[in-house]
């Protein structure tokens, strides 16, 4: 392990074909990051069927590029349009757009891009260091412990993402239910197949993910095609002055320090660390008068935090096989599609693949820096695509992809049915990410639970047998009960004005954000 493995990974990742896929990934990722409503999760889901013919390494390198690229692209729209391309960029919009209006758009873009690069590189390095160490711990994890971890991930994702824990949990249960459809692996019994023979294999993850993200989002956009357009602010001024750099580097590092651990924890991705980073910079700045009027620290910190957490999310994914964001869940489905089961053994059985993936993150990061700064004008042009064309294209691609998986017309019916469900979820503010995580992680959690129970002869106490699972389950309980208790302690329900305000914020996020990437 260690340096030699990483160098081996670089050797695999720098082949011309893999470089090409990395480039393709970051270009696509930036594009979907720039376009509001379309995020990395939807893109990876749409591309899944097309990539089954590729070598796993190339496909995963491309997906990683899309994942990172989405983080960069989001900041561009936040700064120039005040429309965050994804919810992790909301904080960037606060100060970044003010900077752009004050004629310092270029400096804001530069600090966002360079900060993302710095944070991404440090965080990937941390990933390379932490992953092997964590695998040592994870290898001793029992099936009961694993089930506890999955429960923690479920609860954290459901209660942190979205407008209310209840909606998050409902969405999670929906995903868990869809994951149940099919033949039970242990007993061979058919579950919820309604007598339809094609359903005995279960509903394909690709179909569900594409339906919930792509079809749901398309229908949602079609239902409220906002007339009118937003104004782009020219990016003016010098890219970065010496003073900008002096004021930026500390927020970059602090953002990284906040973002990475939050990504690692199953606490639902990049939003919380960006909020925290913004708050921290506001407190620590030497120029408090500039906050709210375009302070560069307020762009540098959150942007670094969201990229660092993107790398952090890969830690539980690669070492434990537990996805903590929608995109990570779909990447996990991709692993399964190649017959690779992510988990503690991944690093030993598929070492070269994982290290090539990590190496490609470094390469992708460098590519993104080069692609983003000089080509900002080009990315903004993407926003001039009339949305009917854009979403018609997405729908076509979604149908083609779903049909291609099994060449079965029934999949198209399921696609449309679940697409309507995805639309309804958006319409009523249910976050989509918990459903997808439930769908993909659910069967894995179930297998582990039943293995644990089989070993213990059905004795439920096995679930709280080790200290590890006790602590983890306790954390899960806290994540579930904490918000409710807090509300009771505060002694009141939210007032109607607050609800209206929260709904307004939700709409802002919906309008802009990629609800699929982070399920805002």
């Amino acid at each position, binding site marked *: 392990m260690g340096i030699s493995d990483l160098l081996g990974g670089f050797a695999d990742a720098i082949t011309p074909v893999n470089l090409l896929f990395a480039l393709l990934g970051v270009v696509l990722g930036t594009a979907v990051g720039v376009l509001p409503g379309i995020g990395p999760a939807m893109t990876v889901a749409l591309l899944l069927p097309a990539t089954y013919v590729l070598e796993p390494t190339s496909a995963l390198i491309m997906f990683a590029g899309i994942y990172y690229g989405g983080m960069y692209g989001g900041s561009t729209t936040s700064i120039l*349009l005040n429309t965050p391309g994804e919810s992790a960029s909301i904080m960037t919009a606060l100060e970044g757009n003010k900077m752009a209006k004050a004629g310092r758009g270029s400096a804001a873009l530069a600090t966002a891009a360079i900060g993302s690069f710095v944070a991404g590189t440090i965080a990937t390095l941390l990933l390379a260091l932490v992953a092997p160490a964590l695998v040592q711990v994870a290898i001793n994890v029992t099936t009961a412990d694993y089930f506890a971890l999955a429960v923690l991930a479920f609860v954290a994702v459901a209660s942190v993402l979205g407008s209310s824990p209840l909606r998050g949990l409902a969405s999670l249960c929906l995903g868990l239910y869809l994951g149940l459809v099919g033949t039970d692996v242990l007993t061979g019994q058919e579950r919820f197949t309604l007598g339809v023979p094609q359903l005995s294999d279960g509903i394909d993850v690709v179909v569900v993910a594409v339906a919930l993200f792509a079809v749901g989002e398309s229908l949602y956009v079609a239902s409220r095609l*906002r*007339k009118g*357009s937003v*104004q*782009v602010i020219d990016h003016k001024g010098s890219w970065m002055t010496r003073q900008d750099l002096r004021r930026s580097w500390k927020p970059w590092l602090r953002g990284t320090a906040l973002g990475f651990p939050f990504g690692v924890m199953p606490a639902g991705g990049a939003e919380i660390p960006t909020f925290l980073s913004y708050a921290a910079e506001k407190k620590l700045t030497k120029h408090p008068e500039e906050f709210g009027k375009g302070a560069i620290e307020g762009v540098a910190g959150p942007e670094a935090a969201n990229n660092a957490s993107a790398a952090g999310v890969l830690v539980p994914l690669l070492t434990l096989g537990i996805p903590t964001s929608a995109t990570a869940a779909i990447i996990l489905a991709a692993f399964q599609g190649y017959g690779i089961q992510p988990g503690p053994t991944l690093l030993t059985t598929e070492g070269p693949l994982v290290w090539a993936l990590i190496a490609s993150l470094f390469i992708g990061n460098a590519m993104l820096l080069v692609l983003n700064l000089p080509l900002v004008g080009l990315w*903004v042009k993407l926003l001039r695509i009339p949305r*009917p064309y854009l979403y018609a294209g997405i729908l076509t691609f979604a149908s083609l992809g779903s049909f291609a998986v099994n060449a079965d017309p029934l999949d198209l019916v399921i696609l449309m049915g679940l697409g309507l469900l995805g639309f309804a979820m958006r319409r009523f503010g249910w976050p989509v990410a918990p459903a997808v995580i439930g769908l993909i992680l659910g069967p894995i959690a179930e297998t582990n639970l039943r293995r644990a129970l089989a070993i213990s002869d059905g004795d439920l106490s096995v679930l709280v047998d080790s200290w590890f699972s006790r602590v983890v389950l306790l954390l899960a309980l806290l994540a579930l009960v904490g918000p409710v208790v807090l509300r009771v302690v505060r002694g009141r329900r939210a007032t109607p004005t607050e609800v209206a305000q929260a709904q307004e914020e939700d709409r802002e996020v919906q309008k802009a954000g990629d609800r699929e990437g982070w399920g805002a």
Partner: protein
Amino acid sequence: MSVVVVGYVPHPRGRAALEHAVLEAHRRDALLVVVNSSRGDALVDEEFVRGDQLRALHDELAASGLRTEVRQPVRGRDVAEELSAVCTETGAELLVIGLKRRSAVGKLLMGSAAQRILLDVECPVLAVKGPPREG
């Protein structure tokens, strides 16, 4: 009261059209209706005037000494339909538009708004070219 309608876009060809429209409106002592429409289906439409550009346009029109009116319809219809609707509604005596040079292939791919306007609109149309090579 006669009416002159002009289709305005914040490009050199739009400026050229506006200049000629102002001249024509003076000559005819007419109300000048400036139309700047957007189909409103893309997130960003750089041809839709707003903010500082809109203020500058209003200032310029005020300075011309004419009676003017600025309309910015966003109804999901394309520019030919909007202009034709405004011309019919106001009973315009003249429509002024700016022209852009297009290659044959570009025209094949994108279609030509100008051509549709020329064919659709009832009133006489004055087509003005922008300064060469600037669009």
